[in-house]
């Protein structure tokens, strides 16, 4: 039964349109830019009417950047692969470490548990630059500088606190008695964790994984300092478009489109899953 008046619906429609415009405009503009040459992008006044070109994408995919000063080799696809690998591996490691830890913090009250959990969260308070300088020196001495392993390790500073605190909340929302009921029915602690706690916290784990993936993907400063060209993710790799003969706006835009595409797709897909999971998994009583 429709209870809203037409005026109310109209106003609501306008408000939603405004919000969408506000948030979507930069993305739409960048998508448009990525199909233009530097000249059409920089013309005054700007216009949405242009002859689309795929040359920005071709340049990125082939790795040959044509500039006024000549051809430049870039490794954008390599950067994209690095981003994907670093983020995925970091989230995987973060989940393996963080989910059991979150469960422990949620269920077992041990001495200092709150302090440890808070310390882990405090990693998110400190500006990354604060830890980067000493970290660089240690990493060089340990031989971890410019290795995937080292980067994934540092990425835990971003990923682990997020996973830990989000998943912990989800575990705390599961009534402990559901797990007790399963344990008393003849199952041990480990299978209860696997068969009851993990599935019930599934939406939370997915949300935490997604969010930390995006945070890891968007990280710039750790990779900038600790990785050299062949290990760099897209965020750092994009610096290559700032060339001696000017900034290659078209390629930058195409690069952005390519680099936000995976996280965008992931978010769209997981959003459906999250809503579904939250309403299905709602535990009454």
């Amino acid at each position: 039964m429709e209870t809203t008046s037409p005026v109310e619906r109209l106003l609501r429609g306008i408000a939603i349109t405004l919000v969408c415009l506000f948030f979507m405009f930069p993305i739409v503009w960048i998508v448009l830019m990525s199909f233009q040459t530097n000249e059409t992008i920089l013309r005054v006044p700007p216009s949405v009417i242009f002859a689309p070109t795929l040359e920005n994408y071709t340049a990125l995919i082939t790795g040959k950047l044509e500039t006024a000063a000549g051809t430049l080799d870039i490794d954008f696809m390599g950067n994209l692969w690095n981003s994907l690998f670093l983020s995925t591996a970091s989230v995987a490691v973060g989940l393996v470490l963080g989910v059991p830890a979150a469960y422990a913090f949620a269920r077992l009250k041990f001495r200092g548990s709150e302090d440890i959990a808070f310390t882990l969260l405090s990693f998110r308070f400190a500006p990354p630059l604060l830890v980067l300088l000493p970290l660089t020196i240690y990493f060089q001495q340990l031989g971890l500088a410019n290795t995937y392993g080292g980067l994934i390790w540092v990425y835990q500073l971003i990923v682990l606190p997020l996973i830990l605190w989000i998943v912990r909340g989800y575990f705390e929302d599961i009534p402990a008695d559901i797990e007790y009921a399963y344990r008393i029915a003849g199952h041990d602690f480990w299978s209860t964790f696997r068969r009851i706690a993990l599935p019930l916290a599934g939406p939370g784990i997915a949300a935490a994984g997604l969010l930390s993936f995006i945070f890891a993907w968007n990280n710039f400063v750790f990779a900038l300092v600790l990785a050299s060209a062949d290990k760099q993710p897209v965020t750092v790799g994009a610096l290559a478009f700032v060339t001696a003969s000017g900034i290659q706006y078209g390629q930058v835009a195409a690069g952005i489109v390519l680099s936000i595409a995976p996280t965008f797709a992931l978010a769209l897909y997981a959003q459906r899953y999250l809503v579904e999971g939250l309403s299905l998994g709602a535990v009454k009583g």
Partner: protein
Amino acid sequence: MTIQLSLKSVDKFYGPVGKGVHAVKDITMDVPKGDIIALLGSSGCGKTSTLRMIAGFEAVSRGTIELAGKQVQTLPPVRRNVAMAFEGYSLYPTVTVRDNIAFALKASRLAEAEVARRVGHVADMLEITDILDRFPFSISGGQQQRASLARALVRDADLHLLDEPMGQLEPQLRTLLRGRIKHYIKERGLTAILVTHDQTEANALADRIAVMEGGVLQQYGSPAEIKERPANLFTGTFVGEPPMNVFAATASVSGGMLTFDLTGGLDLRYAESAFDPRVRKMVLDRKQVMIGVRPYAVHRSESGAAARVVANQWLGDQSHIAASFAGKTIVLVEHDRAHLTEGEPIKVEIKPQDLHIFDPTSGLALSHGNELAA
């Protein structure tokens, strides 16, 4: 009589032993095989803590728990072989009611046909056959509670723990199911512990009732024993509806009459010969006592002591009359409709065999009617 469960000096502290909250204090009790025991008490009295220690969800701070002949207090829940119905139902939200009930049976590798037969039987008994294929979130609280109860009762465990198993049910259904559950448990020779704050439920279901308060086991006995011979003032006033009337009294004897002088300027006088000599001696030795009398044992009589009606409620099958008496209120129950109005003077009589006498400081029972308390 085999002892199925035996608690010996069990303590529960939340926090460090000796310093934390002392939730369960030195409980010792034996549960014979095949009995239904009710843990009765108000909220926070330690009954659920006791139950959870038996199940293995709470560590036992001190003492031992023996189940089916072996010490279990340090074993994980999975190795204790107990079944439990939870107060919060705790059904697995991802599977149907049928699978919830069958879960433990499937894990124990019972033949599928046998699992189906037993689930069907217990669902029939609890009137949940029509919701077996629904998911827990789509059924009502009362149905969830019955599903949770079915999940516990369907199992063959050494001990069945039922935590407030019928709190959410409508009164008619509760009465019906009480009988069926008792029959089911007895027929299969199960041993069960029921946690409840509903004394009707405890009386109807249990062979023995353990009354708890403040973490202490106040009394452990049959429903009749608890009603007729309450061990102390707490059980006396906690069990029984409406509660026992209690008055402080000073006892004296003169001219062959034993007199209880109730503080409030009213005397209850009895012929000395109405009391057993030992009871009489005990009362006179003590002088200061608390006397308790059940509302059913207070009668209106021309020769009684003066009281004045303050309230008169007809409950459909009995009258509850409250009257001011000896500076306090006395409640009496009559089976017929009493035509009394507020402020009307009445006379009440209490027979000597209906008096429960308690120690005013410790609250322990001293005598019940003409018998000394053990």
